[in-house]
């Protein structure tokens, strides 16, 4: 073992799964870490990577496969989805479209670093240069010799077939863009020389883990260089990169991506409001409302370096004129764009829970829903699971907003909850959501429903309140709120739920968040610098039968060694 360790340490390279696996499993048969996850790039990530690699002039056009939500996050779903037949057809179209733009006459001079000797013929050298450089960015690691040779051959063959170097290069590029090596990000394990019997991601997998977590995109050249040099395997090297990335303006993209996911804003795609009942709520209001909440969050967490819990109480936000009309406040913005805005203390709006995005998203098309809103506070913001309702519940009473006897949602829910099978669950949701009843399903303020004054009082985990600001404070002070964002951020970064063996790490992250005064970028930094964030088990199956490849090659990579 010591020999192996020494080899690894001195070579400072990515060791093969196979080699390490055999050796260490033989020596130590205990489980060695959580299973590796393989995640499909999200639509946003795909777009961002193309922009990062080829610049913003290259447009990504096409319809992506839908993402799915698991355990509260699309990021978790990304490690469960595959690519369907129709999905691959779309990826293929998108890839060919991107590739043809890259090699087009308008772009080739800036995006292709070399010129062929003859543009009507294949050119091995130029194809190799372009495909090696681009492939490294797309696959997030250098291509093996075989990989590169295979892609160059595609380019050459196609150039011959089509009598055009650039068309051939485009075809080859498009095959990279549909390759699972681009569309999926896998985690390659290697033995951890510092922790006997344990595995860690190889440096390139680490770079991706880091980059998608902090920036929602693939590693930039600096990060890849750090991986290549082995710097990510040292605490100092890792910290240096994390500090650089957290300090970069691109952290905002990462924070936005995380909260867009955590707050379930993909649901806006399907949000509908009855325009007869809520004439103010239109498509631009829906779009602006999400942006408002994201701006509130990024302003507080990044610009002001504030306390995460204050997202529930802050009155500082930003509005567009259209959104201001829904809030019923004046806003002068001659260009129709965003203006910073602070709700006065007299205004019932405080924090993201009372913003249009939250109250409108968690409502029915034609009426508010204390139940849905309460459920969302529990599940989305406090990470608590609310049981699904029993089948065959009669909701007639709750839905009948014209019921002459029960004029408010509070009264209707009270009547509904006389059914004992319903009462248990409603008890944990409704008293929260009732604090938001002064905001209708379209997000506008109201003081009465069917002529009856609205009572906004409620209770959250024993804390009573009388209005939305009180609810905001109760969520702010609830220890589950910061705990929730910590566990969501971890799961978001890992693409899986933290394992049972990782409870110590979780606790450390929770405690650290508190000690950092709940500063969110500090939490991201702490997660990203944890060795656990890169811990991974070797694959249970794979090329375990290839002990011949014992020597790691300095410029090689895992795949190459495995073969």
């Amino acid at each position: 073992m010591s020999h192996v360790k020494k080899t690894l340490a001195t070579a400072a390279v990515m060791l093969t799964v196979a080699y390490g696996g055999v050796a260490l499993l033989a020596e130590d048969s205990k489980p060695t870490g959580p299973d590796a996850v393989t995640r499909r790039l999200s639509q946003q990530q795909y777009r961002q990577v193309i922009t990062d690699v080829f610049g913003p002039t290259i447009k990504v056009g096409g319809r992506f496969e839908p993402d799915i939500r698991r355990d509260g996050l699309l990021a978790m779903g990304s490690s469960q989805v595959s690519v369907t037949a129709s999905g691959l057809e779309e990826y293929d179209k998108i890839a060919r479209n991107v590739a043809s733009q890259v090699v087009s006459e308008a772009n080739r001079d800036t995006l292709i670093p070399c010129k062929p000797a003859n543009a009507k013929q294949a050119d091995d050298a130029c194809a190799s240069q372009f495909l090696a450089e681009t492939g490294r960015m797309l696959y997030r690691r250098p291509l093996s010799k075989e990989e590169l040779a295979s892609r160059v051959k595609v380019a050459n063959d196609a150039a011959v077939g089509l009598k055009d170097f650039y068309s051939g290069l485009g075809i080859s590029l498009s095959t990279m863009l549909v390759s699972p090596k681009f569309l999926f990000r896998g985690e390659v394990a290697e033995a951890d020389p510092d922790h006997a019997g344990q595995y860690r991601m190889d440096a390139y997998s680490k770079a991706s883990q880091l980059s998608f977590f902090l920036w929602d995109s693939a590693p930039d050249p600096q990060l890849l260089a750090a991986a290549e040099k082995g710097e990510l395997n040292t605490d100092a090297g890792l910290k240096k990169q994390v500090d650089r990335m957290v300090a970069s303006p691109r952290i905002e993209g990462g924070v936005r991506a995380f909260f867009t996911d955590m707050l379930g804003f993909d649901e806006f795609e399907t949000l509908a409001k009855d325009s007869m009942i809520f004439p103010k709520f239109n498509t631009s209001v829906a779009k602006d409302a999400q942006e408002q909440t994201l701006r509130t969050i990024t302003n507080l967490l990044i610009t002001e370096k504030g306390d995460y819990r204050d997202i529930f109480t802050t009155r500082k936000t930003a509005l567009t004129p259209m959104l201001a009309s829904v809030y019923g406040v004046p806003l002068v913005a001659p260009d129709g764009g965003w203006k910073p805005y602070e709700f006065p203390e007299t205004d019932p709006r405080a924090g993201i829970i009372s913003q249009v995005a939250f109250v409108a998203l968690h409502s029915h098309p034609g009426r508010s829903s204390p139940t849905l809103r309460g459920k969302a506070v529990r599940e989305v913001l406090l990470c608590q699971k609310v049981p699904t309702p029993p089948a065959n519940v009669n909701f007639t009473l709750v839905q009948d907003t014209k019921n002459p006897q029960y004029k408010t949602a509070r009264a209707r829910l009270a009547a509904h909850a006389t059914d004992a099978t319903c009462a248990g669950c409603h008890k944990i949701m409704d008293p929260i959501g009732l604090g938001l009843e002064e905001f209708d399903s379209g997000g506008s303020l109201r003081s009465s429903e069917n002529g009856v004054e609205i009572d906004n009082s409620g209770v959250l985990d024993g804390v009573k309140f009388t209005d939305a600001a009180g609810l905001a404070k109760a969520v702010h002070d609830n220890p589950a709120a910061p705990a929730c964002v910590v566990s969501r951020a971890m799961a978001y970064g890992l693409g899986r739920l933290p394992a049972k063996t990782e409870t110590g790490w979780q606790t450390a992250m929770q405690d650290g968040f508190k000690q950092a005064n709940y500063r969110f970028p500090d939490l991201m930094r702490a997660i990203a610098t944890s060795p656990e964030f890169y811990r991974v088990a070797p694959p249970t199956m794979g090329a375990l039968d290839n002990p011949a490849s014992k020597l790691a090659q300095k410029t090689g990579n895992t795949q190459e060694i495995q073969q």
Partner: protein
Amino acid sequence: MIPMNRFSRRRMLRGMFGGAAVTVGLPFLDCFLNTNGTALADGQALPTNFGTWFWGLGLNPGRWEPAKPGKIEALNVELQPLAAYKDKMNVFSGMKAFLDGKPNGVHFSGVQGMLTGTVPRGMTADKPSVDTLIADVIGTRTRFRSIEVCCAGNPSHSQSRRSGAVVNPGEVSPAALYTRIFGPEFTDPNAATFTPDPAVIVRKSALSAVTEDRADFMKTLGAADKARLDEYFTSLRGLEQQLALQLEKPAPLAACTVPGKVDETPIGTEIEMVKANHKLFAGLLAHALACGQTNVVNVAFSDATSSLRRAGGTQTHHEYSHEEPVDAQLGYQPTLAWFFNEIMGSLAFFLAQLDGIKEGDKTLLDRTIVMTATDLGYAKLHGLENMPMLTFGSGNGKLKTGLHIAAQGEPTSRVGLTLQQVLGVPVSNWGTDSMQTSKTITEIVA
């Protein structure tokens, strides 16, 4: 809006249970799904067609929208002539053109928004219409990239344009169209020799490089992930198979027949004349599609400022829109409603021509998507709110049908975007200013 069914059941199964439970047992299939996964592709699907059908002045609000969003249970009164296609059509209500402060070029801005995704600043269009964008994908291997007809006598009524200045002029004479398609230059599609597309040969060969990625990528994966990637590679084989089919001689167009010769007919704006010419055009276009002469057809039933008029009448459809009072009892302009009934009846006739051509247990309409277009929402106002939009046919199962999509003031360009996407145009974002949209109408995507 109908409760959004964002994933087809099939995707749901594959996605939600993440490969492990559902796809782990799937062998590496040696038989191939067709592109839609609806059937095994032991035969080749016939080509998918696209068509537009334009008329002027919209419809009367409140009289065409189905009662409820979701499955269309019954058609509203002004769509009654289309009742036979209730299950083969979609109705889109609540969609509008956004001017963003640009002048309302009445009879112009609305239809440009619908068909080009852009409301021009002046009275000159500056973007290509959706049919040309689709024709660039599905119409490249046919004799005609597209065929346009104008039923009210003026070639400039055509709404199909490559760019602002380049309008694809419509044929106004059915007899001339007959000669153009079925005259001496007509070639029997089933007799023609077949030359494989070199671009497809190259693409197919290139995809083998992706297949080669399989071995080393799989090595890094656990069992569950391997199953997921197996599904990916199954999809890849499907794609390769699709390309392989494109390299074979296409399936015979068994339903292709040459229609009888069409004689010269009187041309004008009087509605019976327009209807008669439209009937001839409809028959010819259906045969042209069935015989693979084109995959894209565009019909302009009238001009945007509908100058249709009744036999012997002096006022045009358009004048009635301004001058006819709303009948206090009925709540709408009755003569306008009469015109709309005639127009929808003609649309039904057009669809009947497509649906009347049987191809196995399907019809020509089933492998076609027809999108309607018009210039206004409520003619009386010449407004651009709630502009009626309809689609017919599923385009070889690419589109779900029988649905009413009730939007709330969303841009009409959403329909154009969605149809481009299902017909293979690589676009995720279409239109300009507030007409720009990336919101696919996922409810209708099969």
